[in-house]
């Protein structure tokens, strides 16, 4: 049987991402690669364009009259003006297909981690506040998270889980930031691709772990952003802390 021309491994992966058959973890890896490898991003775009005509064969159906007013109400004002705060954060592009199932599973894992009692304490201390969590995604609003974070106010620790494939972004580090309501990023440390860790928060940092604070991850040179007050590399994923 004729095999036809083979796709290179990279292009096959791009095609699979465009088709949407990858697992959530592999999709996250593909998104990461799109952000750092323009040739790969172009392959994904080309495959999306190749497959898009499939949707064009679908018959058009006039949308009900009520939809447009709903869209208008949902439009954020001035949303396109560099996110208002002027932090100049560059976000990942891409039209990821996500799985809420994975998100739910990850959150369960994070909650279980967060709920493990401290090793040397018989009874957990009374709760200092609600557990907060954030699902860090690329900015297009796709539900597939690249990282999930949970803040445990009792132990003043942030538990971060990277869903990025281990070994991704060689020669770079993924630096974690909190951006509270004042808009100033504070560095929290690093998280290795594919790993989970608990980061103890100083009292000062703990004050920033509030509902609505953004948790973000940037790709940085080894050692982290040369500027301790802001990411130097691209912001790869961001999410807001909210009560579970």
């Amino acid at each position, binding site marked *: 049987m004729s095999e036809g021309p083979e796709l290179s491994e990279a292009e096959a992966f791009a095609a699979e991402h465009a088709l949407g058959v990858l697992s959530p973890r592999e999709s996250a890896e593909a998104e990461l690669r799109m952000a750092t490898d323009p040739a790969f991003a172009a392959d994904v775009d080309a495959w999306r364009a190749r497959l898009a005509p499939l949707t064009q064969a679908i018959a058009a159906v006039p949308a009900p009259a009520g939809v447009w007013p709903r869209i208008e109400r949902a439009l954020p004002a001035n949303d*396109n003006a560099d996110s208002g705060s002027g932090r100049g954060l560059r976000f990942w592009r891409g039209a990821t*297909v996500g799985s809420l199932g994975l998100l739910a599973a990850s959150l369960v894992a994070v909650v279980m981690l967060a709920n493990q009692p401290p090793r040397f304490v018989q009874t957990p201390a009374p709760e200092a506040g609600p557990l907060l969590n954030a699902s860090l995604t690329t900015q*297009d609003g796709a539900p597939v998270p690249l990282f999930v974070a949970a803040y445990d106010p009792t132990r003043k620790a942030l538990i971060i889980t990277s869903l990025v494939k281990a070994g991704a972004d060689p020669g770079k580090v993924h630096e974690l930031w909190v951006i509270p309501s004042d808009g100033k990023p504070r560095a929290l440390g690093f998280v290795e691709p594919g790993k989970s860790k608990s980061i103890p928060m100083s009292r000062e940092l703990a004050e920033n772990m509030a509902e609505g604070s953004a948790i973000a991850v940037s790709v940085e040179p080894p050692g982290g952003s040369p500027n301790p007050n802001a990411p130097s590399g691209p912001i790869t994923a961001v999410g807001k802390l909210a009560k579970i």
Partner: protein
Amino acid sequence: MSRVAGGDRSALRQLYDSTSAKLFGVCLRILSDREESEDVLQEVYVTIWRRADRFDAARASVMTWASTIARNRSIDRLRSRGMMAYAEPIENHELPDGGVSAEALLVAAGEEGRLHKCLSELDDRTESVIRTAFFGGVTYETLAQRMDTPLGTVKSWIRRGLAKLKGCLEQ
């Protein structure tokens, strides 16, 4: 699109008027549920509004770009329904409208016609798996489970199918 990126709501309205029926059709095709499709259609245009500055006319037409967003958002929604939606056996999940529509076959030229022609040149199983993946938002893992076939086998069907598809489209 540049007016949409600049925050011009009337430009978004124009885009909506010219594309919403197509995109609503895409949502309905994937979700088979009017109410959910309306929700997703709303999300799609809010996404277009937010991301219009990323649109690159050199890379795709507005329609291709917008339908990709509509398809992906619909699949996100489909997946968020959870395991129930995945429980359907693959036989029942194939195109309810009978695979390649008669209408599509009548399209003599253009990229749409070419894609359908090239897909139809694949063996039936590969064509069906690719279509199911595209419209059903099904991952390799789910496809393998549904077809009771090793994941590696399904993966090689699809990879080979995609390679052939590309070769055919480039002819």
